[in-house]
């Protein structure tokens, strides 16, 4: 059973990484326009604004 001592924290760590990514995506405003984002993948890049 001692394998659990590694496996469970490892599983939790993976979960935490997911949570970190979620928080990052939230803070960077990726949930602000869900409909637009879904459609933007269909738009070609060349006409996008050049920064």
């Amino acid at each position, binding site marked *: 059973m001692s394998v659990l001592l590694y496996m469970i924290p490892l599983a939790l760590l993976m979960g935490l990484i997911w949570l970190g990514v979620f928080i990052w995506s939230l803070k960077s405003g990726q949930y602000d326009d869900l*409909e637009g984002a879904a459609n933007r993948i269909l738009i070609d890049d060349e006409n996008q604004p050049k920064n």
Partner: protein
Amino acid sequence: MTASLFVTNGPDDQRRLTLSVEGVHCPACIQKIESGLAGLPGVTEARLNYTTKRLALIWKGEASTADVFIQKLESMGYKARPFEPTHAEATDSEQAKFLRLCLGISGFASGNIMLLSFALWLTDTQQMGLITREFFHLISALIAVPTVAFAGRPFFRSAFAALSKGRTNMDVPISLGILLATGMSLFEMFRGAEHVFFDSAVMLIFFLLIGRYLDFLALANARRAASDLISMMAGSATILEDGKTRSILIRDLREGMTVLLGTGERIPADAYVIEGVSDIDTSPVTGESMPCKVSEGGALYSGTINMSAPLKIKVARAAEDSLLADVIRMMEKATQGQASYVRIADRAARLYTPVVHVLAAATFLGWILVGMPWQGALMIAVTVLIITCPCALGLALPVVQMLAVGRLMKRGVMIKSGDALERLARIDTVMLDKTGTLTLGQPSLVGMPESTKIKIAASLAIHSKHPLSVALTRVYTGDLHDLRVTEVPGCGLEAMFNGKRVRLGSRDWCGDRHASHNVSALELWLNIEGDEPARFSFTDPLRTDAKNVIAVLRARGLKILLASGDRKEAVKATAEALSIPEWQAGLKPADKFSLMQELRAKGHRVLMVGDGLNDAPVLAGANVSASPSSGLDIARNTADIVYTGALFEPILRTYDIAVYSQRLVVQNFVLAILYNVFAVPLAMAGYVTPLVAAIAMSSSSIIVIANAFRLRAKI
């Protein structure tokens, strides 16, 4: 053009502007708009939020370039207005982020705790070993405690707010259940006991947050749509200062400023005329459908519309005080009365909370009396609290509401407050305004006069913005004579045609003074020199479906009352046309307000539908209120429900949906109570393990959600 007034300055000479864009209907518009604007010189960023239809622009250069962007959008076929995020909206987007974060964290936590819990449920201590069990419990606690502390805050805050006001709401038993489940589980863990309820606590938070988030999304969407409508009116005025003209925002107008007012413009603040003669459309304020004439020194009220000639006016009161101070005061008073409404969920909580707490206490005492050690008795009592936690209730209401609000919004009805549908379902009286509510609020020509005459009349009318002229040109689509027309303010239009003088205007000026009067109609007279004057009659047509809708509403058992500020004859004609038995005419805003208060004092629950400034206090004071989107901004701002389109049918539809969704909510409450009837005795008897609690919680939630989705079939 005044978009530059809304531009904010960023670092490095950057200018920022948010535009609310109308006409974005398909994803292709994203590219069209963004690349169209990005191609303009100086633009560094143009990004369209497809969900909110707002365009964020960043550029370097002059602030006045803003107008170029708007023109560019217009040339592409979109209508854009500068948008200023309101305070409420900024709070909304903060709130959305917070709820999403809580949802993410509790989702993570429930997933991971479930992994451990399944192991605990499916095996026993002999199989997994004491150490492993303790280890699983410890990890569960490490996940659950921070989650409860962080993601439980939406409930704790609301419960605390209610308690500190001496009230109780659904969040009180929820918070108590969560906290007790966590606290008790911690205690049990340190004691080395067999069962902990960390999974229940975290799942409860996760499920309830889903409900909370859905609830929030539906209303935030509706509020945003409504504030878009309102921002369309956030206008500007042209002032004359030291011989130069300049545009400023209406809210910056101060007493004594001189404003230049074009034809068709809304009067921005209470003022008086210093130069010019014109007709004023006062219908937004008084409901009176006939324009009245003003000349030098004449008083003007904000919200009315200048119709026939440019005016120079002096502001009498700053715009902030101007929107008829007494109207505002009445509205404030009325709104305070509104705060006493208790939502159905909270009314349920008032009954529910004591019952649940008494049951839990009785369980505890009962087990102590039969000789159980206090820890065991407390554990069973906490199980009772967890199992009765109104997870189903917490979801039932938001899901029904989200479906109802979402469906209505697709059909052009925006519900602005959470309890509006609840209040709407309980009304017994409908109070209606006439002009702009039952009617379209714009005159249209009755009958078709001789074609040669209408051609001349339309050729004159095309030169004026007077609503009757506009109505005339809207009907006539043929060729026009090329005339040199002069406008005589307060009288009408004049031109020379084939060597004869032709006039189009009021009865006194160029009509037949002795002709019979049709009281409910407005009229224009065409006078061709040496010929009989010809009459054009106009009426403000009723919304085409108004009669049917009112008949159906009456069939639903509602009392209909027409309350208008217009002349008696006009109101009477409308009431008869729509077969409304009860009507009152010539009401001032204060009369309407006291009429409504009288109704409420008699115990009636009133829906007010109105669109004007004179309706605003009544809208604020009624049990629930609706306004057409063509209404004045103050009315739309005040109303709980804003509907679009030229029909009256949205009122009926919204009422029916409100009644139906209310029925679903009640069914859901019954389902939740039934579930408790089965679950509580089991919990009190001590048969409920964490596994049973988890299953009961999930299944009851699924049942009420499934029931709520029946709304989709209905609308």
